[in-house]
């Protein structure tokens, strides 16, 4: 019998899923994930994930636009 | 030189055939290495023909979709040739060394019925493109009229006769001349039918013909509108053949008895120039003349009169008799009967007026109009005699041409003649109902005709008249001749171009008839040269007039005693008085096929393309006529249906019938036909198919009759009219500012007294916008004006400015036509004008102001007057034609074109920088950059921008709504040649020649406006710089530059110049106390300022006024609260030096 590839568990309600996730995270597993039809409030902390990096992308995107739009005029004299 | 005479870059001709070398074109074998080395090594083959460069060739790429252009149109740039002259042009044209690209100027003149108007014609690339007044000729002092400026277009009229033909068969000019020679030598009596002219060469030729043919020849002169009345009446009054020459500049007080000397009289331009000389007020102590006018219709002279009395045209005789009787000249029974008909106020009015004349003995002038019968004119000479005016304000010069028979005489004794030779008359159209013109035309054996197929021609279709030779008549710009100007000076008429269609001139026909041996007939050039009696022929041609040929006025003016009595006539009870008038736009019909004349708005009604029956408000109410609806008018049993126009200022029971419309024959403008394309031209599609061309009132007129009686009744049938200005009242807004002479003098004295205190620098005391001006121009400017911020931005050499004197502007529209001719402005057709899309860059706003009219007042049922606005169709909006105040209004004219603002509202809203501010103060319009969002037109408070809604230059006016979608043939044409116009071929080629190559022709979708003739500004600057060479004298002075409207204005009302040149006239006028800026509270800083209109009322007159009506209207609506606040308190701003 070949080695099982992965283990999957299905729950009825979001609360049970969160509880299970807490246990799994507690056991120290690394390669695991939670799938749900809608974002479950509070699941990130339970899974111990840090802040999403989307914020930084947006910030630097904004900075780039600002430089192209106004920055090079304001900061450099007439090049 | 094969000229692709398209405007713009000239000198290159598009050769559609691509051949590589002379060898290939001659079929020889070409050298191999030549063939592929068209492009230097390394540069790869040119990419797909990226035709961006050609997009705006002649600004005419109609649908330049780059994508579509890639399809079939060749993969290489079309080779364009730059082709030199065949041989050097040292001898050039007329002995002037020809430099291609530099316009040349020649003096010539336009012959009129009683004389000629000296002109200066500009020739570009060998063809005349513009005419303006000849400023050096003392006889005209540069004055001309709108017909002269528009006559350039007649030269290139596609409907001109092009071939000689007889009985439908064409013949060459040579055969036609041969047949004419045999006619001249053949037996039998000949009658000549000629238009009237005053030319020494023509008189000489007529003398020679009479010597040769003795009593076998007789000459008849026919003019639909006869100005010979002045000479005939003067000759009878003084019993010597003389004609009056009016000197308005010498007259202090002028009374016009139905005499529109600034509008429809023959030398109106000259008279306007003289009259307005005494109306230019620079300071308080200048004097001003005073104009009284007694007339039935509202004419241009009446509109500008200080006092105007409405009297029926048939009553004017009674007025003259009353004056004569007051002066003790006339007191027989018939005159008493005439005088009773005058009302009490009319008598009262005339008495006061007479007092003024008696106070100005020798400095007054009474004039009678061409419409008045001979007896009135004779009476006027007597009146002038008693008042001491003869010899002072009116001189008399001997009449040069003899008196010929009229058309009526010819039709009576037609039997005596075997043949008639017609030198350019059109008796079928304007002969008159009582003339057998059909018989005259049948007997005509030789006919000079200007048009291919006009009324007289179309009747030639009948077999009996087939023997007539039809020869094309030459335009004055392509024929030799001479004429006597108003004061007798002999002026030369020289051609600018060889006759376009081998046309013959009148002199040539007369010279064939006059020469004893027909083969050696003199050419017109030789005739004029022989007639010339001065010293230097070249100088005569160069100057345009013969030095010292001015005829000396007759001094012993002794009036004959017996005074003819004036026929008594009253208007029958149920009928109206009908007045046949000369039309301001199309003269007597000779300019009906001229697009510019048809589209220039009538100075009074502002209607284009049509004539209307004008009636007064009371007459309309009494007879149940409706404004803008058709009515049936019957005169002497003949009737015609034409639209009624309720005209302010008309006398009651009078109907004015402008002549010259309703023409038939192949005249594409006069007899305009809109194409009936149901899919496009239907009402629902916005393009109403309307009929154009006006109504032929000659059908009601018996020959030579200006006054008649008829019955009129409303038919209620609608007739769409297209006028350019639909609202009459100024709504109490201080747009045109006026004052009386007294007010002006009083305020000037006050200003002079207080001038010491610098806070009072109120330049003018006229009502301004409720003191808004002072609010707007606050001291602390939020944004520094760019000129202050970066002074280098502003040119220190030229700054352009313009000043228009409303006191001199008589509203005659000459400047509008001159601007159209100079700047290639297209005409758009009646349906587009009705839709408000006319393209004139310059318009004359004409407002009516009422004696006690308050635009804001409520009407009877308490609703604000605006509420009763029904629809705002093309017959004028709301209910203004039914309001009380229009019966006896005052009229103000205001020429309005781009005022070139310093803080221009149009520049800040154009998204593509198509309109920008130039360093010399111009608001520049870059046509090639405009994409046509039209926001600039919306934001312009003066609404002086015009938009090319359609391609008016390249598409037929009969159907502008056509497109490749609805007519696939257009798409195929477009594919083959993107510049191909869809106008008719001949129309396109000819009208193209009339264009001024120095100004670009705008295409569809582009906004355009007055740019102070920037092509002339550039030409002046370049000439100055080329002359200056490496020197620094580049500042433009007054002598270097005149805009088209400035040079066209006979009243000299428009002044344009360089504000930095201290002694320029425009700076002088801007310091005139009358200067003001329209809509100044918008703080746009307009570079065109206006000089306020000052009226000169006589306090003793019953209809006198201490304030002009517009000031009263202003006070009644807005002025109340702000007026004292605005007028006296200093504006806190004076014309700061720098932000001129």
């Amino acid at each position, binding site marked *: 019998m070949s080695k099982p590839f992965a283990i999957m568990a299905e729950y009825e309600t979001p609360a049970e899923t969160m509880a299970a996730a807490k246990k799994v995270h507690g056991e120290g597993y690394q390669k695991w994930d939670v799938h749900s039809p809608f974002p479950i409030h509070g699941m990130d902390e339970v899974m111990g994930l840090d802040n999403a990096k989307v914020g930084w992308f947006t910030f630097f995107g904004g900075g780039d636009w600002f430089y192209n739009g106004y920055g090079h005029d304001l900061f450099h004299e007439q090049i | 030189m094969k000229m692709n005479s398209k405007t713009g870059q000239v000198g290159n001709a598009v050769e559609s055939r691509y051949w590589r070398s*002379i060898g290939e074109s001659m079929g020889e074998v070409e050298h191999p290495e030549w063939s592929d080395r068209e492009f230097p090594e390394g540069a790869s083959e040119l990419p797909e023909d990226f035709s961006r*460069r050609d997009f*705006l060739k002649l*600004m005419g790429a109609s649908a330049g979709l780059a994508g579509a252009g890639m399809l079939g149109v060749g993969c290489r740039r079309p080779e364009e040739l730059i*082709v030199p002259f065949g*041989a050097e042009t040292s001898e050039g044209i007329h002995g002037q060394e020809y430099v*291609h690209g530099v316009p040349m100027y020649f003096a010539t003149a336009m012959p009129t019925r009683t004389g000629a108007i000296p002109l200066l014609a500009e020739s570009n690339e060998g063809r005349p493109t513009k005419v303006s007044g000849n400023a050096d000729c003392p006889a005209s002092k540069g004055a001309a009229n709108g017909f002269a400026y528009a006559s350039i277009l007649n030269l290139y009229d596609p409907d001109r006769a092009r071939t000689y033909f007889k009985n439908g068969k064409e013949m060459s000019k040579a055969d036609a001349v041969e047949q004419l020679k045999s006619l001249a030598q053949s037996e039998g009596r000949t009658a000549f039918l000629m238009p009237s002219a005053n030319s020494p060469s023509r008189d000489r030729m007529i003398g020679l013909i009479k010597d040769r043919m003795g009593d076998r020849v007789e000459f008849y002169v026919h003019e639909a509108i006869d100005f010979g009345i002045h000479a005939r009446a003067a000759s009878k009054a003084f019993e010597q053949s003389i004609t009056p020459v009016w000197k308005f500049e010498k007259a202090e007080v002028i009374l016009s008895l139905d005499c529109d000397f600034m509008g429809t009289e023959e030398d109106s331009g000259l008279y306007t120039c003289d009259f307005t000389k005494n109306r230019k007020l620079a300071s308080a102590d200048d004097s001003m003349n005073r104009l009284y006018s007694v007339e039935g219709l509202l004419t241009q002279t009446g509109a500008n009169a200080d006092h105007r009395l409405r009297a029926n045209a048939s009553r004017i005789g009674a007025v003259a008799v009353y004056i004569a009787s007051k002066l003790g000249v006339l007191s027989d029974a018939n005159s008493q009967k005439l005088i009773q008909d005058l009302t009490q106020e009319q008598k009262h009015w005339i008495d006061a007026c007479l007092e003024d004349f008696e106070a100005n003995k020798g400095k007054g002038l009474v004039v009678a109009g061409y419409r008045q019968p001979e007896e009135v004119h004779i009476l006027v000479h007597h009146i002038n005699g008693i008042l001491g005016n003869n010899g002072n304000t009116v001189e008399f010069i001997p009449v040069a041409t003899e008196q010929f028979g009229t058309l009526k005489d010819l039709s009576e004794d037609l039997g005596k003649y075997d043949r008639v030779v017609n030198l350019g008359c059109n008796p079928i159209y304007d002969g008159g109902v009582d003339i057998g013109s059909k018989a005259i035309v049948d007997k005509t054996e030789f006919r000079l005709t200007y048009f291919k197929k006009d009324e007289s021609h179309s009747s030639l279709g009948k077999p009996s008249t087939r023997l007539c030779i039809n020869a094309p008549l030459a335009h004055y710009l392509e024929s030799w001749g001479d004429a006597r100007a108003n004061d007798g000076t002999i002026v030369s008429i020289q051609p600018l171009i060889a006759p376009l269609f081998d046309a013959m001139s009148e002199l040539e026909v007369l010279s064939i008839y006059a020469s004893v041996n027909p083969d050696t007939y003199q050419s017109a050039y030789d005739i004029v040269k022989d007639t010339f009696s001065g010293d230097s022929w070249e100088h005569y041609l160069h100057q345009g007039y013969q030095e010292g040929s001015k005829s000396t006025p007759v001094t012993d003016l002794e009036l004959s005693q017996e005074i003819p009595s004036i026929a008594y006539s009253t208007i029958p009870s149920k009928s109206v008085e009908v007045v046949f008038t000369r039309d301001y736009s199309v003269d007597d019909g000779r300019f009906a096929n001229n697009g510019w004349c048809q589209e220039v708005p009538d100075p009074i009604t502002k209607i284009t393309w049509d004539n209307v029956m004008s009636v007064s408000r009371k007459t309309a109410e009494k007879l149940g006529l409706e404004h803008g609806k058709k009515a049936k008018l019957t005169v002497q049993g003949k009737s015609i249906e034409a639209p009624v126009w309720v005209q302010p200022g008309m006398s009651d029971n009078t109907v004015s019938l402008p002549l010259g419309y309703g023409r038939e024959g192949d005249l594409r403008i006069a007899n305009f036909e809109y194409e009936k394309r149901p899919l496009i031209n239907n009402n629902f599609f916005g393009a109403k198919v309307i009929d154009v061309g006006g109504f032929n009132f000659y059908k009601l007129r018996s020959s030579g009759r200006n006054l008649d009686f008829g019955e009129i009744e409303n038919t209620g049938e609608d007739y769409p009219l297209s006028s350019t200005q639909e609202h009459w009242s100024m709504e109490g807004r201080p747009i045109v500012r006026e004052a009386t002479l007294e007010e002006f003098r009083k305020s000037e004295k006050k200003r002079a007294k207080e001038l010491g205190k610098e806070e009072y620098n109120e330049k003018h005391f006229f009502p301004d916008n409720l003191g808004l001006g002072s609010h707007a121009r606050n001291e602390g400017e939020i944004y520094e004006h760019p000129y202050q911020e970066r002074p280098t931005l502003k040119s220190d050499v030229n700054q352009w400015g313009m000043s228009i004197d409303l006191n001199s502007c008589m509203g005659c529209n000459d400047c509008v036509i001159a601007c159209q001719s100079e700047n290639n402005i297209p005409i758009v057709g009646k349906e587009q004008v009705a839709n408000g899309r006319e393209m004139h860059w310059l318009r004359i706003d004409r407002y009516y102001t009422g004696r006690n009219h308050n635009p804001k007042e409520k009407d009877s049922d308490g609703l604000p007057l605006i509420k009763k606005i029904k629809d705002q169709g093309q017959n004028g909006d709301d209910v203004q034609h039914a309001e009380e105040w229009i019966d006896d209004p005052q009229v103000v004219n205001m020429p309005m074109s781009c005022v070139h603002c310093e803080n221009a509202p149009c520049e800040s809203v154009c998204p593509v920088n198509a309109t920008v501010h130039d360093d010399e103060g111009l608001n520049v319009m870059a046509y090639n950059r405009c994409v046509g969002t039209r926001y600039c037109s919306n934001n312009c408070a003066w609404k002086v921008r015009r938009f090319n809604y359609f391609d008016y230059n390249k598409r037929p006016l009969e159907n502008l709504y056509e497109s490749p979608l609805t007519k696939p043939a257009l798409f195929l044409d477009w594919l083959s040649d993107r510049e191909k116009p869809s106008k008719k071929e001949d129309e396109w080629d000819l009208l193209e020649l009339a264009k001024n190559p120095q100004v670009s022709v705008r295409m569809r979708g582009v906004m355009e406006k007055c740019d102070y003739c920037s092509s002339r*500004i*550039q030409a002046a600057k370049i000439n100055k710089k080329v002359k*200056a060479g490496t020197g620094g004298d580049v500042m433009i002075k007054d002598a270097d530059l005149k805009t088209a409207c400035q040079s066209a204005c006979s009243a000299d009302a428009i002044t344009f110049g360089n504000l930095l040149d201290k002694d320029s006239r425009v700076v002088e006028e801007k310091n005139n106390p009358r200067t003001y800026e329209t809509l100044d509270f918008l703080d746009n800083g307009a570079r065109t300022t206006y000089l306020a209109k000052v009226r000169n009322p006589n306090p003793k007159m019953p209809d006198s006024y201490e304030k002009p009506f517009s000031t009263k209207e202003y006070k009644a609506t807005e002025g109340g609260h702000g007026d004292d606040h605005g007028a006296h308190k200093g504006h806190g701003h004076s014309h700061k030096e720098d932000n001129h």
Partner: protein
Amino acid sequence: MSNIFPKWTNRLPLILTVGVLVAGACVVAGVTYYFTPKYTRVGYQPIQPVSFSHEIHSGQMGIDCRYCHNDVDKSWYSNIPSAETCMKCHSMVLAEDPRLEPIRKSFKENTPVPWVQIHKTPDYVYFNHAVHVNRGVSCVKCHGKVNEMDEVKHSKSLSMAFCLECHRNPHENVRPQSEVYNLNWEPSAEWDADREGQALVDKMKIRSSQNCSACHR
């Protein structure tokens, strides 16, 4: 049911972003060069009906430009000489040369020689030769070294940006009036545009307007 998307599609977003950036750069570069007058005009050297060589006439023999283009300092249009001017010498020099056949034919029959136009501004641009050549702007500025061209070539782009370069700083492009028709003239070492050039501009009061009204009307 096999998987619809192969494995590599995971990297699709990355491929897309890089691809778009590179393609965009290429298109922009291509348009700025190929679709502007710098390319579409420069290098255009059509074959003329007569192989007239400026190099020989003005280069070697030093004939002044105004000998043939005599109206260049009088009108906006610098005229092309008629065959008469050529025949002044060529009635003797190379009298039978087959290459000059069109000139002789034109001179005899008084018909123009169909030269092919090279330098042409669009119809809505009103360029004036007289005001430039009389005020210190040499032919070489716009037509390039014609005296070294065997066959005239379109050397400068004559685009609006090209004209604006001179109009924006006239002092760098002005030369003494005497040198206008000397195409080989180069500013000498100590010729400093800001000093001598500016002096010329001030003396001649050159106001090279950068405004639309300068060339468009």
